């Protein structure tokens, strides 16, 4: 799979010389940062054999809440971020409650949460996009502004590199280390591999699964914060479109380096692959409506190649 990515980059470089410029790649990776954070959220839940599809809605919730906090309640950037992250954790906690305590299947529980979150958000602001000066449900006008410090999360730079890229790198590194080298990470993989065997080895399976959903909720909310900083307005459903790509990136991750299981490096390669394709196809002037089909085709081809090679060895 890594080979596919390298070949793709080489091809695009040959076809469109501007592809391999610093500007283009900075934009590419900056675009990718939100998607990567959300994809890592999915990865976290899949490690314990769960499946969190509420992550897109969760990111949208983070957008709504952080914007509302600043525009309606005059909160500082820091408070806005905090509110969003806490909400993300709460979503994770509710998911965990539904799945572990009430034993709902993972996919169905998080799917239900997706609808609930999307629906509730829209009720709160009567379906509007949150912007400074908007009219609230009670007739008043919102007098707060979107704090510059908040926008800096995506638009600011540190050592010439956008902060959102730093954020993505730090989170990816931390999660990678956590899953591959710590005891808790290893047990999470064990829970994902065989929950009953993990239980019979004395592991508190419920605790580990809960932790996974909390991590997932947190990372999705973090992605939402970066998204809010990027678009600058509180568009509630902005996060929904990230769901499919996040799942795709995680699944591609299975095929990277013959992992055969969810892994951080693989997810990043998956997200990068899709980002490179979108960027490259745009530069090749492929109309946007054809891009998705090509994306799917390349993804399937890459997966087939990787899995076919694996089964032959």
């Amino acid at each position, binding site marked *: 799979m890594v080979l596919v990515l390298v070949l793709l980059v080489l091809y695009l470089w040959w076809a469109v010389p501007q592809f391999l410029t610093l500007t283009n790649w900075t934009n590419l990776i900056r675009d990718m940062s939100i998607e990567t954070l959300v994809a890592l959220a999915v990865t976290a839940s899949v490690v314990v054999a769960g499946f969190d599809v509420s992550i897109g809605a969760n990111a949208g919730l983070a957008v709504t809440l952080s914007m509302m906090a600043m525009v309606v309640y005059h909160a500082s950037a820091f408070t806005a971020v905090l509110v969003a992250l806490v909400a993300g954790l709460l979503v994770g906690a509710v998911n965990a409650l539904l799945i572990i305590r009430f034993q709902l299947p993972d996919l169905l529980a998080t799917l239900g949460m997706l609808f609930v979150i999307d629906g509730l958000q829209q009720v709160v602001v009567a379906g509007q996009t949150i912007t400074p000066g908007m009219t609230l449900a009670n007739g008043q006008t919102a007098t707060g502004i979107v704090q510059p410090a908040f926008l800096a999360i995506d638009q600011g730079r540190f050592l010439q590199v956008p902060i959102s890229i730093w954020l993505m790198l730090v989170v990816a590194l931390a999660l990678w280390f956590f899953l591959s080298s710590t005891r808790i990470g290893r047990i999470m993989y064990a829970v994902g591999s*065989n929950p009953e065997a993990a239980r019979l080895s004395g592991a508190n399976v419920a605790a580990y699964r809960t932790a996974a959903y909390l991590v997932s909720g947190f990372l999705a909310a973090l992605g939402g914060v970066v998204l809010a900083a990027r678009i600058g307005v509180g568009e509630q459903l902005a996060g929904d479109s990230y769901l499919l790509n996040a799942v795709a990136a995680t699944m591609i991750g299975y095929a990277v380096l013959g992992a055969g299981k969810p892994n951080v490096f693989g997810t990043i390669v998956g997200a990068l692959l899709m980002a490179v394709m979108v960027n490259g196809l745009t530069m090749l002037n492929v109309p946007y409506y054809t891009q998705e089909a090509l994306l799917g085709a390349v993804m399937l081809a890459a997966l087939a190649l990787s899995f076919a090679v694996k089964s032959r060895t």
Partner: protein
Amino acid sequence: MAPALLQLRGVGKSFSGVRVLQGIDLEIRPGEVLGLCGANGAGKSTLIKVLTGYFDHYEGEVEVGGRAVHLHTPALARAAGVDAVYQEVDACIAPGLTVAENLILNRLTSSHYPFLTARRRVLADAAEVAAPVGLRVGLTRQAEDLSLHEKQLLVIARAIAQQVRVLIFDEPSTSLSMRETERLFATIRDLRERGMGIVYVSHRLNEVEELCDRVAVLRNGRLVAQFEEMVSTSAIATAMLGAPPEEEFPEPSTSASAEVAFEVRGLRAGTALRSVDLSVRRGEIFGVTGLVGAGKTELLRAIFGADPKQAGEMRIGGERVEVRRPQDAVRHGIYLVPEERRRHGLFLDFSASRNISSVFLAKFCRFGVIRPRAERRGAQGVIERLSIQGNAEGPVLRLSGGNQQKVVIGKWIIGEPRVLLLDEATQGVDIGTRRQIYQLVREFSSRAAVIFASSDIDEVIGLADRFAVMYEGQVAGVFARGEADRQSVIELASGLRKGTVA
């Protein structure tokens, strides 16, 4: 002598350069039960797969009645009259369908069967198929609800209806009760009378001795012995191992004292376990035997906290311990080697090494971070101590059954067991590994209270210093070594006799 049903000449198979089977010359004759024995990894399942058309390529020739056949697909094998009843019978049963539909599955899937199947026609056809084996279950029942034994009969009936001539049984008696095993043997003998050629593959040498007319022994992929008439189990074992079998069970304990190391009072769990008391003395191996369903597994799981219990007290060395979940058990030093190693004992996609370190991973960590070298060294130590063969870093799935079982036991060794519970620890394990496990259990008995549960009565009688016989969720009797003969144990286990607890 009647002409052979199946003639194998120079049959062999290798996988990516690894040779698994070589130069097999074998005859399967009508009206005969041929026993096939061999240690784990000797090539038995590969040979069965060749005969049932699992591989699209193998070396050598197979002939049916003098005519060469190419067993390259399961359909071709069935056309040649070869079929098998596998240990995992569920794999041959379509779960969503009824018994009747399963019985005539091959007809239902052929194009000759009418598109709109009248229910009456299906039932009538199915009854016809079921008759020869005497399968007496409701034909409209869901096939997956049948007992293991009934499912076996279903598969046999289906094979007969398809004019099978060579029927291979792969470890069929593993999960059967004694009565069911007897009925299976009766069915097999009946098939033999009809002129079928039966191949009976089993680790249980006493069964092979009882049932088979001839025995072939595989070792390291070759046919090392073919006995033209029944021989003793030790002769078979010698051929399997390549050396005369030593004393099967380790020396009885000399250090057993009367001091109670572990005791259970009034343990009750669900409907399967009805008030059990037992005590294990220091230094002894305590056995638990009984038929399938007697409650042995439920007893061990209740002690371990794997299943909720309604009542019961446990004491280790006189000190009361509360166990509500497996975590509590492990904390108190109570460890369980579960009955189903693949489903409950192993992380199949982890390496053997990582399986071994999985429980006490904290020992190889500093501040929650795993130290890979320490982990590998720890696992390697266990691997050497237990002589685990196979690639330790590859997926544990690839190891043989016996080695997988050693991995399951190995992961507990790193801890400090005070009570070690073993449930059917030697099931599907070859003789050599079985002996190693017995030796290990004996070593552990000096440090921990060992409870060894097995439905193999001879195993418990030979290994345990004292043992309990269970029947329908209760202890029917407790005996010390030498106090009870096989017959009385069987009677107690079958409820034919009421015993008094020693």
